[in-house]
């Protein structure tokens, strides 16, 4: 096994565990410090996915749960971008999954009791593999904002949850994609778990007129950056090397 490690995660760029304005984090945050590990095969390797794992329609949320000849109600959008590492290199063949509420802010989940209705033609989840250039795209409807029980009057900005694998378990990441210009973004206690405003900006998809399909769908671009990797290692004697 080739020795190569991922760059250390910048824990001051990510949100800390305890962020009291996001109330659920208070009882769900470890109090002891994390124990820091240097990379070993357990962290450097991770699951591998292929085209056999998914269906081609899985990245099309306009179609993947709709009745034949019908489609969901809402603003039709393309969400696309590249998965890169911190060196700016594409991450090809990696699994990208997403889930979201419908145009009214309602999730198709039995625990969601918000009074906005379910859309019969919208499931709200999708998945795809990046191509050889690290590129991915989804077609969906823009999700609506929804209220949640945090403060008395808290509303999540429109967002799409995204899950990305990379090539090693240490790159595993779940995040949320927001939309340019949404005035709810900077009011949100979950967004504001992130201390650095530049880091928050990294989660805001940009309106991408060049990728918009005239008379069909608006496009947003959202690039995702996973941890980069050293090509040389200071400790040069891992097992098998």
């Amino acid at each position, binding site marked *: *096994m*080739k020795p190569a490690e991922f760059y250390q*995660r910048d*824990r001051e*760029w*990510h*949100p800390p565990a305890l962020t009291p304005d*996001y109330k*659920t*984090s208070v*009882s*769900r*945050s*470890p*109090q*002891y410090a*994390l124990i*820091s590990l*240097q990379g*070993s*095969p*357990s962290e450097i*390797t*991770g*699951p*591998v996915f292929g085209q056999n*794992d998914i269906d081609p329609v*899985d990245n099309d949320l306009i179609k993947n*749960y709709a009745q034949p000849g019908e489609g969901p109600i809402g603003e039709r959008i393309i969400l696309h971008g590249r998965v*890169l*590492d*911190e060196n*700016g290199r594409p991450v090809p063949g990696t699994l990208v*999954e*997403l*889930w979201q509420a419908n145009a009214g802010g309602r999730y198709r*989940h*039995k625990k969601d009791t918000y009074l906005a209705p379910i859309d019969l033609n919208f*499931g709200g*989840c999708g*998945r795809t593999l990046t191509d050889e250039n690290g590129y991915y795209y989804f077609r969906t409807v823009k999700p609506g904002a929804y209220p949640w029980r945090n403060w008395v009057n808290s509303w999540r900005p429109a967002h799409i949850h995204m*899950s990305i694998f990379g090539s090693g*378990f*240490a790159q*595993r*990441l*779940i*995040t*949320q994609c927001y939309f340019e210009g949404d005035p709810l973004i900077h009011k949100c206690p979950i967004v504001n*778990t*992130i201390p650095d405003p*530049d880091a928050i900006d*990294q*989660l805001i998809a940009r309106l991408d007129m060049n990728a918009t399909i005239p008379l069909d769908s608006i496009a947003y671009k959202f690039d995702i950056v*996973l*941890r980069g990797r050293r090509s040389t290692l200071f*400790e040069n*004697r*891992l*097992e098998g090397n």
Partner: protein
Amino acid sequence: MPQELNYLKETPSQTAGPYVHIGLAPGAAGFDIYKQELGWDIAGPNAKGERIRVEGVVVDGTGSPVKDVLLEAWQANSEGVFAHPEDSRDVENGFRGWGRVITDFETGEWGFDTVKPGASPARGGTLAAPHINLWVVARGINVGLNTRLYFDDEPEANAKDAVLNLIEWEKRRATLIAKRSERDGKVLYRFDIKIQGEDETVFFDI
């Protein structure tokens, strides 16, 4: 002004939120959308080694079960090989080594079937004691929590494991050791995760 390094920054993490199941385990959440759900079968039908079941619950700082958790497991096969191109050795056909489970919405219990992993390569040419890497996400968890499950019937390997020995508080190492028992003739390991408070599970920055 010094030069710029020109690295990109890693995309910041956000909580998986309360509805992670519809995205990552829709079938398990009772939502039929994909032909094939990923992560239900960690070891596959051909895996050698001892078939085991792992069960547990994730508990918050108040001692209450966390009922909206999603866990992912990553492990080597019974010979300590990871199903990954950088591991030069082969695994059994169908062995993936990766799985994901959600908790029961009423009880918070989770569990998965797999094979017990073998000792796998660690740093410096040493071997890691058999272990399963776990990643825990849920509402209220801003960055997924990494931990490791070790086995209580591997005391000698555990005593030499470099990662366990990194934990200077010996008492805390016990939070990573799953307890073996049998049920209906099947081998069962119990592994409860305590996110916060007394006997808080050790989590890693990997």
